[in-house]
Each structure stands twice: as structure tokens, then as C-alpha cells.
């Protein structure tokens, strides 16, 4: 025991022997550090009740809260990535994939479900940032295309929630080509007059931002999401100046004309249902 710890009264010196609080009962806001009751936070759709910060969500939970309870049919859940290049950096791509699959219980970084939002039939897809930074590789690209095809088959709108660091480096040029692939697929929706709503959540960067995410008929962002092409650190190193306050945040994009609106997560269902009903000439949902 050092002299300092000896000075502290024994009542304060008890953190090591405290009674265990059940795991997961409480969580902390990643923005304001407020300690939040987990159940309440979940009821609030993972938006901090104290400061309004929108926390990151898994793709599945995102769709869980966005879609009506019934009906739901998952699109192409069986698709799995393969390591065609035998890519290896400090770790093998294969091992990274295994680890990501284990921790997220997903096969890759995009989940897509055909369902309804306030009784309007839609296909909704969502990125999982926890799966290798939501990076877009072959499976993400293919699932997105199949989501588009399902929309065409059923003549229903597409909604995509992006959360991604960009292209997946471990799939090298194949991942770059997913930018072309997802963008090309969207031209088919345009030809059929089917709406595509792109929702950018924190963060939407690089190859995902520079392809499908910016191509919505309606571009929406969640408050304060980081959205851009190049990462802030890369820009800082290139231009050698400090970036302006709020640079590449949703509010910045709205001001510069890149997105149509910023929508609070708790209003997302209502807002998208309302917009879609007008674009498809349906009565107010």
C-alpha cells in the first residue's frame, strides 16, 4: 500500500470489493457520459434521454425498430463472404471474418428485410458497423442488389440505413467494384419509378457514401452523424489545417445541400412512411 492510499479514509477505498451490479443493466451515453438505465435507453431507441445523442445500432436492431412487427422476410440471409484473394495483413481476412461473425451473429455487414413500415410494404436494408466497420465487400454489394431486385419484383420502395467506413480493403478491387454495382442497380429503380430513401447514420464514409448512400431520391441523415468521402484525419493531414467545427456532420451536409433533411430516430418511421406515401400516391399512413 503506498503512502497515498494509506491517507485515503478506508470507506472510500472500497471499489474493489463492491457488490456486483448485474451486467448490462446500466449503460453510459457515449456523448455526455450520463449513466442511463438500459431498459429506458432501449425504449428510447438508443437515443440518450439526457442529451439526445444517437448511439450506433446493429443493423438488425435498426430494422427491428423501424419495421412493423409483421410481416418480415429476410432477403438473402444465406450469403456468406469468401476470401478469394487469401488476403492477409496483421491477421488473416478469414480470421477477421470469423471474429466478426461470432461477435455480431451476422454473416456480413448488411441485413435486409422485406416488410412494412406503418403498413406500407417496403424493403429495408441496414449496415452493421460492428461487422468490420460496416465495410462494403462482395456480400454487401450482392445483398443490396438483391434488395433492389425484390423491390422491382414487388413494386415497393427501398430504404437503406448506411453505417460504414467505406470499402472493405481485404477484398481489394472487388470491394471497389461494389460501388459501381450498387449504383448501377439503383438505375433500375429509377426506370421503374420506385423510390429509394437513403438514411445516413453515424458514420457513412468513403465508398459507401460515394455510391449508394448519396443516390437516394430522398437523402436523410440522423442528427450529428459523420458523413463524407475522405476521413477527417486524412483531410487534416492533406490540407494541414484544423477542420472547422461540425465539419462533415449532418448539419454541415444539410447546409451545403447534400441531404434533404435531418430526422430524429424517434420520428424516423413516421417521417419515412409519410414521404413514401406521397411519392407513391397513397393516403396518409
Amino acid at each position: 500500500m503506498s503512502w497515498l492510499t494509506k491517507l485515503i479514509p478506508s470507506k472510500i477505498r472500497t471499489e474493489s470489493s463492491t457488490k456486483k451490479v448485474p451486467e448490462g443493466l446500466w449503460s453510459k451515453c457515449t456523448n455526455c457520459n450520463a449513466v442511463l438505465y438500459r431498459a429506458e435507453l432501449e425504449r428510447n431507441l438508443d437515443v440518450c434521454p439526457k442529451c439526445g445523442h444517437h448511439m450506433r445500432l446493429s443493423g438488425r436492431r435498426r430494422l427491428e425498430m423501424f419495421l412493423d412487427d409483421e410481416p418480415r422476410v429476410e432477403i438473402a440471409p444465406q450469403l456468406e463472404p469468401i476470401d478469394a484473394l487469401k488476403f492477409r495483413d496483421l491477421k488473416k481476412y478469414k480470421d477477421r471474418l470469423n471474429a466478426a461473425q461470432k461477435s455480431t451473429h451476422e454473416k456480413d455487414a448488411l441485413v435486409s428485410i422485406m416488410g412494412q413500415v406503418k403498413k406500407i410494404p417496403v424493403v429495408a436494408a441496414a449496415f452493421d458497423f460492428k461487422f468490420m466497420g460496416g465495410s462494403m465487400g462482395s456480400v454487401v454489394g450482392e445483398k443490396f442488389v438483391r434488395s433492389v431486385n425484390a423491390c422491382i419484383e414487388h413494386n415497393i420502395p427501398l430504404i437503406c440505413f448506411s453505417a460504414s467506413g467505406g470499402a472493405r480493403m481485404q477484398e481489394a478491387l472487388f470491394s471497389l467494384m461494389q460501388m459501381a454495382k450498387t449504383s448501377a442497380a439503383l438505375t433500375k429503380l429509377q426506370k421503374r419509378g420506385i423510390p429509394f430513401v437513403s438514411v445516413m447514420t453515424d458514420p457513412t464514409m468513403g465508398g459507401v457514401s460515394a455510391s449508394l448512400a448519396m443516390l437516394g431520391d430522398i437523402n436523410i441523415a440522423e442528427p450529428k452523424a459523420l458523413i463524407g468521402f475522405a476521413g477527417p484525419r486524412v483531410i487534416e493531414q492533406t490540407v494541414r489545417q484544423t477542420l472547422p467545427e461540425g465539419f462533415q456532420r449532418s448539419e454541415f451536409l444539410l447546409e451545403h445541400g447534400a441531404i434533404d433533411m435531418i430526422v430524429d430516430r424517434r420520428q424516423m418511421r413516421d417521417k419515412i412512411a409519410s414521404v413514401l406515401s406521397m411519392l407513391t400516391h397513397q393516403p396518409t399512413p
Partner: protein
Amino acid sequence: MNLNFLEFEQPIAELEAKIEELRYVSNDAEINISEEISRLQEKSKTLTASIFANLSPWQISQLARHPLRPYTLDYAQRIFTDFDELHGDRVFADDQAIVGGVARLDGKPVMIIGQQKGRDTNEKVRRNFGMPRPEGYRKALRLMQMAERFKLPILTFIDTPGAYPGIDAEERGQSEAIARNLYVMAQLKTPIICTVIGEGGSGGALAIGVGDRIAMLQYSTYSVISPEGCSSILWKSAKNAADAAEAMGITSKRLKELNLIDKIITEPLGGAHRDIDAMAKNIRNFLVESIEIFERTALDKLLEQRYERIMQYGNFTGD
């Protein structure tokens, strides 16, 4: 060290210097050393051939950015006639990192578009090191849509480290500009032929790289991120660029094996910069041959093929 030669080319540089020296001597002396010179020249050729036969991906990526490497306008001059450069995106500015315009290839009108790097310091700055801003991509888009209206085939030349990562570029929608080009090029009703002539850097390259036939010069590269960038993210150090170049498979040979490109255009011995005329001729042959193929293809067929090809990109299981 001769700066016009890369590190792995230094043995060639030394030999070349020796030849130059001998030439200088033979000019003012009676001794006939032309035999010696031609022997050394032969040796230089064999040496170059042997060095270039076994280049690593990292060495190739250095060649792709060689200071003497020919740029879009060097080829434009040699391949086309009547080139009229067209400027501006009609909205904001004329981005000189991308050049474009109408020209004739073998007498036939075409639209050419390419990234352009600068040769000396002033020009490098003016061309922003070949890194386009949104207005550059929007100029390219404008020219491509014009080409569609007037039924001109589009020939693009890719040579960029990437789209410019700057504050102004983000303000004006770099992401949207790139995305829009991918979207429009996928359905543009005219043949598009893309040639990577130097660095094919990520989304900034792809934004003029969606087409019906994709070629790469032998020592050019095409990748999702630069080897240095990949190294610093995945290896957490800038020192593993060579490993990253190897792992990503950025060379024409590897990408042809992976069926991501259609054609490798052979470079002259020692690289494109050692004989620009010969290089231009090879590119020209490829372009003429490609245009002839597409002249015989119906437009809906062409678009269908383009779409199918784009849809085939990727590897996965579970079907």
C-alpha cells in the same frame, strides 16, 4: 543517384551513364569505341529486360507514378487529331485535374476524358497532383452526357492518386459527384472504353472508370486504396506498403487473372516513359479495335452486357 530512374532501376542508370560518357569521349577522339558502346547498349537492354521481368507489385506501383510517366495529354497529342479541350462544369469551376474534349481517332469523332497530373511544380499545383474535386467529376459528367447526345464513344484515361481529400471538396459534395458518375455511366447510351494509364486510385479513379471495356497499361495499378494507405490502416504503420501492394493485387497481371479487367496493353521495354510514341501506338491500337467491336454491337445489347458485367463483380457463397 539519377532521379529519373527509380531505385531498382539504378543499375540501368549507371550503365546508361557509362554509355553517355563513352559517346562523349568518342566524339573528340580518334579511337573507335563504337563497338564498345553497342556492346554496352546490348548489355543495358538485357539488364533492363531481366530487371523488368521480375518486378514486385510495389515496384510496379512506383513505376505507375514515375516522374517521367506519360500523362493523359501526352497520349492525347499522339493518338488523336483535332483535339478541342472543353472546360468547366457550368456550375462552379474548371477543375484542371481532369481534362476532356472532342477529338478524332482515325478520323472518327470521340469524346476523351482523363485525369491529368502536372509535370513541373507549377503545373503539379495547378493540376492538384491529378486529384479531382467535385467540379472535375461534374465536368466529366457533362462531357459524357454530351457524348451520349451526339453519339460519340467515350474514351477515358485513368491516372489519379484518388479524389481530392480537402475541405472544399467535401463542402461541394465529393461523395455525390463520384456516386452520380457511377450511376450515370452504368446506363449511358454510348460505348465507354476505359484505360488505366498510371495510378488507378480508388473511387476517384472509378468515377470515370465504369465502362464496356477496361484496359490497363502493363505497369499501371488499380486499387481500392493506395498501398501506403492500406499499410497504415491494416498494419498500423506506413512501412508495410510493399506488403499491402502484394496483398491487394493491384497490378494489371493480377487483375486480369481475377477477370476484373479485359486487357493488358504492353509497355515498351523499361516502361511507357522510355518510348512514349511506341506506348501511344499500342494504346491507339487497343482503342481502334475496341471501337470497331462496339460499332458492330446494338446499343441495347451493349447496355445489357455492361449491366451484367457490373452485376458479376464479387465473390460469395450460400446460393
